[in-house]
Structure formats: C-alpha cells, structure tokens
C-alpha cells in the first residue's frame, strides 16, 4: 500500500482509472476496458500481451496521444484535455515514446535530422547546441557512423535506434517503448536490455536522472530480470501482477504462455 511519504517521494506520473482504451483505427470501440493503473516515478513496468491485445493502444493512451473512451487518464497528476496548450505541451514533452516495428523514423530526413527535429522544433537553442545534443544521442545509441544517411538505408536492426535517439533527444522523464525487441537478434536484444536498464538507473546523457520506463512485449522472458513491475493484457483486460517475486507465485496461464513463448 502506498503511503503519503511514498507518494511524495515517488509521485504518480501516469494514472488511469476505469479507463477504456480505444484503437486509433476504431476510435469508438474499446480494445481494453476498466484499466486501473498507476505508474510512479522511477517505476520500470513491463506489460506483456499477445499480438492484437492492445499494447500499442495502451501506450499511445498513456502518452496522452489519444484520450480514453471512458474513465480517467492523468499525466503527472493532470488531465490533459483540461490544460491550456502551453501546459499540455509541457506535460507531453516529459514523456518520450518509441513506437513498435521500426520506431517510425521519418524516411525523408537523415538519421541526424530525425534526432534534431524535436530539438529544432521545440527549442530556441543555437544550431551548435542542437547538433551537440544530436551527436550525444547518436553516440549513446551507437549511430554516429550513420548520421548522414536516411533511415531506410540503415541496417534493419538499427532503424529502431533512430526512434530511440529521437525520443531521448528532449530528455524525457518517462520513456514508453512498444515491443522494442520484436524481430531483433540476440546481440541487438542484449544492447536494448542493457541500454534501457542504464536509463532506468540513471544514464549520464540524462544527467544521471533515473528514467521511468514502461515497456510492452509479447515475449516476457528477456524482461523478467529487468522490470520491477509487471502486468498482462488479457481478453480486453489489464491485469497487474506485481513485482518480480509475485511473478514466480502467479498461476496465470497467459503468463506461462508469454514466458514460454518461442521456447520450442
């Protein structure tokens, strides 16, 4: 049970109460119902669910990119629709999002321009400051050698890192990652897991500040030793499971499916 002191030390950053999550393709239909979920500062959530269970829609709603059909959604304690544009923008910029698949880089821009875009759009920093930050982001994501090429010309496994570098450029406090390990080989998988762990424990490029992480996945195995809080999406419902110890005691069949996924 969270105490008042705990709430002050680790305030909620994302809250959903009885929320019905819709799909971007069918905004009038709930793909997940009755979501009650609190993400607190410095949490590391891992949400598992089979393909089509609504993981991406849950993250898009959590980031404030779409509103729930019903229920309450708060970002840093505030409901976005009630805010004026500058305040809403301020809250939105505190959350970074890495989309699933290829992380959706803009193919008409180079890798460096992709990373520079949010900095140039939102900040009045000088060009040298912008490019310094871009170099830093490319350096930590090991993309420096590919700065001047377009994302479609990159190796497939490196393309999602462009989305990661772009999401980190503005220094968000919360990072939402949609199935980031999908389609990656063991070496790339290791890199992502280590990098996300370093963000969660305070990466130097983020001034050592611990980042709140929410990850969705369809294979829980790589994440069981990484995440600190776990949940499942099953049959249009959000099932919080608790921490790592709770995972071991849980008898949920879907959990066993997802931890045994691809084991054959």
């Amino acid at each position: 049970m969270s105490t008042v002191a705990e709430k002050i030390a680790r305030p909620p950053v994302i809250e959903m109460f009885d929320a019905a999550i819709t799909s971007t393709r069918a905004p009038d239909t709930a793909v997940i119902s009755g979501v009650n979920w609190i993400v607190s500062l410095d949490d590391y959530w891992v949400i598992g669910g089979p393909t089509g269970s609504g993981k991406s829609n849950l993250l898009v709603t959590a980031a404030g990119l779409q509103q729930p059909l019903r229920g309450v959604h708060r970002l840093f304690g505030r409901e976005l629709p009630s805010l004026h544009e500058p305040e809403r923008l301020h809250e939105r910029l505190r959350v970074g999002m890495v989309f699933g698949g290829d992380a959706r880089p803009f193919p008409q821009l180079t890798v460096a321009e992709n990373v520079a875009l949010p900095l140039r759009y939102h900040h009045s920093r000088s060009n040298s400051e912008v490019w310094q930050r871009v170099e830093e982001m490319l350096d930590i994501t090991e993309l420096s050698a590919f700065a001047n090429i377009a994302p479609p010309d990159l190796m497939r496994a490196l393309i999602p890192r462009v989305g990661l570098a772009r999401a980190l450029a503005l220094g968000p406090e919360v990072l939402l990652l949609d199935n980031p390990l999908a389609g990656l080989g063991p070496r790339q998988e290791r890199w992502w897991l280590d990098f996300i762990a370093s963000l969660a424990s305070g990466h130097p490029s983020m001034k050592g500040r611990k980042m709140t992480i929410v990850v969705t996945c369809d294979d829980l195995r790589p994440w069981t030793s990484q995440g600190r809080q776990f949940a499942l999406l099953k049959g249009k419902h959000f099932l919080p499971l608790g921490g790592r110890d709770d995972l071991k005691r849980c008898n949920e069949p879907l959990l066993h499916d997802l931890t045994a996924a691809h084991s054959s």
Partner: protein
Amino acid sequence: MDRTRELMAFALIATGVTVTKFNVAPRVIRPLIHSQIHRAGVRLLPMIGFLGCALGLIIIGQTVSLLTQIGAHTLIGTLMVTVVIRELGPLLTTVVVLARVGAATVVELGTSRARGEVEALEALAIDPVHYLVLPRMWGLAVSVFALTIYFVLVALLSGYLFAFLQDVPLPPSEYFHQLAGALRWEDFAMLTLKTAAFGIIIAVVCCYQGLAKPLRIEDVPNATTRAVVSSVVACVLVDAVFIVAYLLI
C-alpha cells in the same frame, strides 16, 4: 456531403493552425516552405514556360493576328487581360500544379499516415497540420502565384512573336500600350488573391485526401481522383466568386 463537411472542418483547422502557429518553429517550417516552393514552383518552370509558349503561339498569336486584320486591334488589350491574365493564366497554372504536385501530395501523405508518421509527429508534440499542411499551403500559394505571372508573360510575348512573324501590322509599342492600357490596379490585386487562393485550395484538398485516413494501396487511385476533382470544382467555384467581384468593382 459528409466528406464536404469534413473537408471544410479540415480547412478551418488548417487556417486556425496557420494563424495561431504563424511564427512557431520557424527553423523547421521555413525550410519546408522553401522546399515546397522549389518542388511546386521552380521545378515546374520549364513545363509552364512550354505551355505558355504553346498557348501564345497557337491561340494568342492567331487572335492578335485576326483582330488586327479586321481592324479591331484596339480590343487586343481588353481581350488579353480578360482572357489570359484574369482567367486562363491562373486556371491553367493551377491545373498543371495540381496534376504534378497535388496528386503526388495525396500519395506522399497517405503513405506517411499509413506508416504511422503522423502519430510519430504527435508523440514528439509536433502538430502534424503545422508540420505537414502549413508548408504546403504557403508553398503552393506562392508557387501558383509566381508561375501564373511567368505563364502570362511568356504567353503574351510568344503571342506577339507569332503575330510579328506573320507580318501583322502591329508595332510592339502599340501591342504593349494596349495591354498596359487595359490593366487596372484591381487586376494585380485580384490576380494575387486568386492565385494564392487556388494554391491554398489545392494544398488543403490534397492534404485532406492524404491525411484523412491511412491509405491502402487500392485506396490511392480513388483518393487521388477525389483530390483532383474536388480541387478543380473548388477552384472553379472560387473563380466564379472572383468574377462577381470583378463585376462589382
């Protein structure tokens, strides 16, 4: 009817964003506007030059020749200003820009939408209308205006060249005197407003057709056809409003 309503709503949103975000992120938006002007304006110069030349040689030259032969050369100025500067120039230029750039815009934005780039922009707190639509509105407005001027000049000059080569007894000074005499200040103002309006209409309609919903491959031909037809109809309707305005002035 629903589609028309949605298009109107989209046009209002785009106009609102143009006003409220006029000077937001100029470092990002201005290069995009320049790139649209290059794409829809500079790169179409040869095509417009060719069409202007063809129109001048085929139609204007013959008209000038005919009017001079029947002794009606005093009507040349009025006729050219009414037909070429007020109507044909803006409409033909708009159709060329629509065919070359408008249709491509539908496919480009439809693909962007299908790839989820619109959501990616929103995730970066970048307004997709500001980033994708506004540069096209400004770019096409400036391009249609500039290309129309270019088209009119080439058409009128090549028209006179045709008449000159046929030994029509009309000195250049008389030809240009007729044209200058028939031009009124409102022609300049109306030409600017009309061409800018046509450019904005093409941009808004094509962006709407591209962004309204994620396009699948099989949707592309229909969306492009809808964009072209809707743009032409909207431009003709706006043109009718300008004709009424000319008559009232």
